[in-house]
C-alpha cells in the first residue's frame, strides 16, 4: 500500500514535470562549422512540411548543408533556449511569434542581425520588420503574417459581419467561439477590443472597457477553443458559427470544403506575425544568416505564402489571382493593423486571464 502510494505520488510529480518540460541538455545543436549542419525550428504540421519544401530543400541543394529540422512550437523552443542561457544553443535559426521573441530578446537569447549581410533586406516589409526590432536593433526577419479577423459559417450567417463589434450581435448568441487570452487569437481579439476607441493596452481604463464589452458575450459562447484543432472542430461541427481567427486558416478551411467565410474588420485586423531569428551564441551564425537569405527570397516565399494563405514578409512578390483576391497585404495594410503590445501584455496575461475566467469560467 505504501509502495502504491509512493508510485502514485511519483506519477503526479512526473506529470507535473512533464508539464514544465525542464530540459537541461542541448539537443540537436551542432557546433562544428565544417560539418556544415544547421539546426532550424519549424511549427509542426502541414506548415512545417511546406516550410521544408519551400526553403530547406533549396538551401540544402544549393549549399550542400544538412539542415536538422526541429518541429514544435514557441514554448518548447523558448524553454530549451532559456535552459542553454545563450551558450551553445540547441538551435541556430528559430521561429518565434512576437509573444515569445520579446522575452527571448530580453533574456539575450537572440542575436541582432547585420542587415547589410542580408541580400533581400530592402524588399522586406518595413512594418513587419519593425515588429521584430527591439531597442533600435533588428533581431528577426518576417516570414509571413496572418491577420486576425472574423471567421464565420456562410451557411448559418447570411449577412456577413463587417467589424469586430458584430460578434456581439444577438443573432449569434449561443454560437460564438471565443479563444481564451492564453491562446494567441484570444489575446489578439482582446487587443482589437482595447483598440476599438483608440485605447491602448497600457491604459487600465481601456482594458477595463474591453472587459466590459467582453461581458456582453457571457452566456453566448458555445466553445472556448484553445488550439487550431479545437477551432476547426468547433466550426466544422457547427458548434460555433463565428470566431475571431486568422485569414490563412479560414481560407484553407474554405478550400477544404467547409462553408467558411472571412472578413477583415473595418476598424483593422490584428497582425499575427511569424519571424525568424538567429540565436545568440550560435556556432553557425554565418550559415544561419545565409539561410535567412533563402527564407526571405521572393521566389521561395511565394509558394509558401500561397500554400499557407498568409501574406509574406517580402513585398516584391506578385501573387496569383486567387491569393490576391482574398488576402490583404502590403505596408499600407499592415500599417493599419492592430498589433498586440506584448511588452505590456505578457506580464499582465495571468491577471487578465483571471478576469476573463470570472466572466466565462
Amino acid at each position: 500500500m505504501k509502495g502504491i502510494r509512493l508510485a502514485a505520488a511519483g506519477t503526479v510529480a512526473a506529470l507535473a514535470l512533464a508539464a514544465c518540460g525542464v530540459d537541461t541538455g542541448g539537443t540537436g545543436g551542432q557546433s562544428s562549422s565544417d560539418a556544415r549542419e544547421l539546426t532550424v525550428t519549424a511549427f509542426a504540421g502541414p506548415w512545417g512540411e511546406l516550410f521544408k519544401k519551400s526553403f530547406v530543400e533549396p538551401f540544402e541543394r544549393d549549399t550542400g548543408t544538412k539542415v536538422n529540422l526541429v518541429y514544435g512550437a514557441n514554448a518548447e523552443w523558448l524553454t530549451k533556449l532559456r535552459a542553454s542561457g545563450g551558450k551553445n544553443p540547441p538551435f541556430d535559426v528559430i521561429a518565434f511569434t512576437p509573444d515569445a521573441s520579446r522575452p527571448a530578446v530580453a533574456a539575450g537569447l537572440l542575436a541582432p542581425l547585420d542587415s547589410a549581410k542580408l541580400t533581400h533586406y530592402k524588399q522586406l516589409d518595413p512594418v513587419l520588420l519593425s515588429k521584430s526590432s527591439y531597442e533600435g536593433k533588428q533581431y528577426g526577419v518576417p516570414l509571413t503574417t496572418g491577420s486576425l479577423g472574423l471567421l464565420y459559417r456562410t451557411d448559418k450567417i447570411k449577412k456577413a459581419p463587417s467589424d469586430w463589434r458584430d460578434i456581439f450581435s444577438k443573432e449569434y448568441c449561443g454560437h460564438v467561439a471565443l479563444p481564451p487570452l492564453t491562446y494567441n487569437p484570444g489575446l489578439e481579439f482582446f487587443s482589437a477590443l482595447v483598440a476599438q476607441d483608440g485605447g491602448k493596452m497600457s491604459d487600465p481604463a481601456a482594458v477595463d472597457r474591453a472587459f466590459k464589452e467582453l461581458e456582453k458575450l457571457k452566456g453566448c459562447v458555445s466553445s472556448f477553443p484553445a488550439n487550431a484543432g479545437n477551432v476547426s472542430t468547433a466550426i466544422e461541427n457547427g458548434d460555433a458559427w463565428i470566431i475571431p481567427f486568422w485569414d490563412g486558416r479560414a481560407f484553407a478551411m474554405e478550400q477544404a470544403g467547409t462553408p467558411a467565410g472571412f472578413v477583415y474588420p473595418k476598424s483593422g485586423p490584428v497582425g499575427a506575425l511569424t519571424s525568424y531569428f538567429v540565436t545568440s551564441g550560435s556556432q553557425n551564425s554565418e550559415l544561419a544568416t545565409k539561410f535567412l537569405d533563402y527564407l526571405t527570397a521572393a521566389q521561395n516565399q511565394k509558394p509558401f505564402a500561397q500554400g499557407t494563405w498568409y501574406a509574406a514578409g517580402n513585398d516584391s512578390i506578385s501573387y496569383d489571382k486567387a491569393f490576391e483576391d482574398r488576402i490583404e497585404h502590403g505596408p499600407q495594410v499592415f500599417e493599419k493593423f492592430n498589433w498586440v503590445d506584448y511588452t505590456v501584455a505578457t506580464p499582465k496575461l495571468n491577471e487578465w486571464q483571471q478576469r476573463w475566467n470570472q466572466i466565462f469560467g
Partner: protein
Amino acid sequence: MTRATRRWRGAGYVLPLVVFLTALFLVPLVQLLRLSFNPVDAYNAALPGFTLSHYGRVLTEPYFYGALLHTLLTAVLVAVLCVLLAYPAAYLLAGRRPGTLRTVLFVIVISPLLTSVVVRTYGWVVLLSGNGVVNRVLVGSGLIDQPAQLLTSYPAVVVSVTHVLLPFAIIPLTTALGGLDHNLHRASQTLGAGPVRTFLRVTVPLSLPGVVTGALIVFALAMGIYITPLLVGGVTEPLAGIRVYDQVTTVFDYPVAAALSFALLVITLLSTTLLGGAFRIWERRLYG
C-alpha cells in the same frame, strides 16, 4: 557485521532502480524546486536569487488557488466515481476462473491504458461534439431540440478522466476481491445470510483495503492529470495541471509553473498520506 553486510547486499538489488529514479526523477524534481524559488524578469524569465513570491501568488491569486481547490474536488469526485464503477467490474473479474473470458474481460478493462491519449480523447470529441453521436441521438430522439454543449463542459472532463483512470481502481479492487477467502461467503450463507447481506456485511468491509488503494491511486493521478481534460475540456478548465501547462506554454513563467506544481504535489502527498494513514489506523483497530 554479517547482518549489516547482508542487508546491504539486499540493497544492491534495488540499486539500478535507485540510480534510475535519482537521475531521472529526483534530480529534475530538485531542479524544479529550485526553479520555483527563482525570481523572474519582466518577461518571466528566471533569474538567480531566492524569492517566495511565486508561492505567494499561488496561494493568494484565485486563478491559482481556485484551480488547486477545483482540482482537489474534481479528484475526489473522480476517485469516488471510479470506485463505484470499478466495484461491479472487479467483482465480476474476481469471481471468474482464469480463462479466455477472464482475459478478454481484463483486456477490455485496461483498454483505456492501452490506447494513446490522443486517440482516446478524440474518441470522446467524436462522441460529444455538436453533431457527435450523443447529440445526434439526443436530438434525433426528440429529447432536446438543439445540440447540447457537451464538449468543453465540466461533466465531459469528469467523464473522460474517470474513463482513463478507471483501470487504476479496477486492478487493486480485483486483487482485493480475488484475495477474499471464499469460505467467508459460505460461512455467512450457512449462518443464514442471503447474498445481499453477505455482500454488505462480509464482502464490502473486507474489500475496503482495495477500495482505499484504488481510490488513492485514482485520486493522486487525477490531481496531476492535464492532457485529457485539456483536450476534452479545453484550456479554460480550471484544473491545476492545465494552469501549469498554461504558465509554461503561453505565459512562459516557469517559476510560477514550478511553484504551482509543487503546491499540487504537496496537497496530493498530504491528502493521500492522511487518508492512507487514517485507513491504516482504522484497519488496525478493526483487525486487532
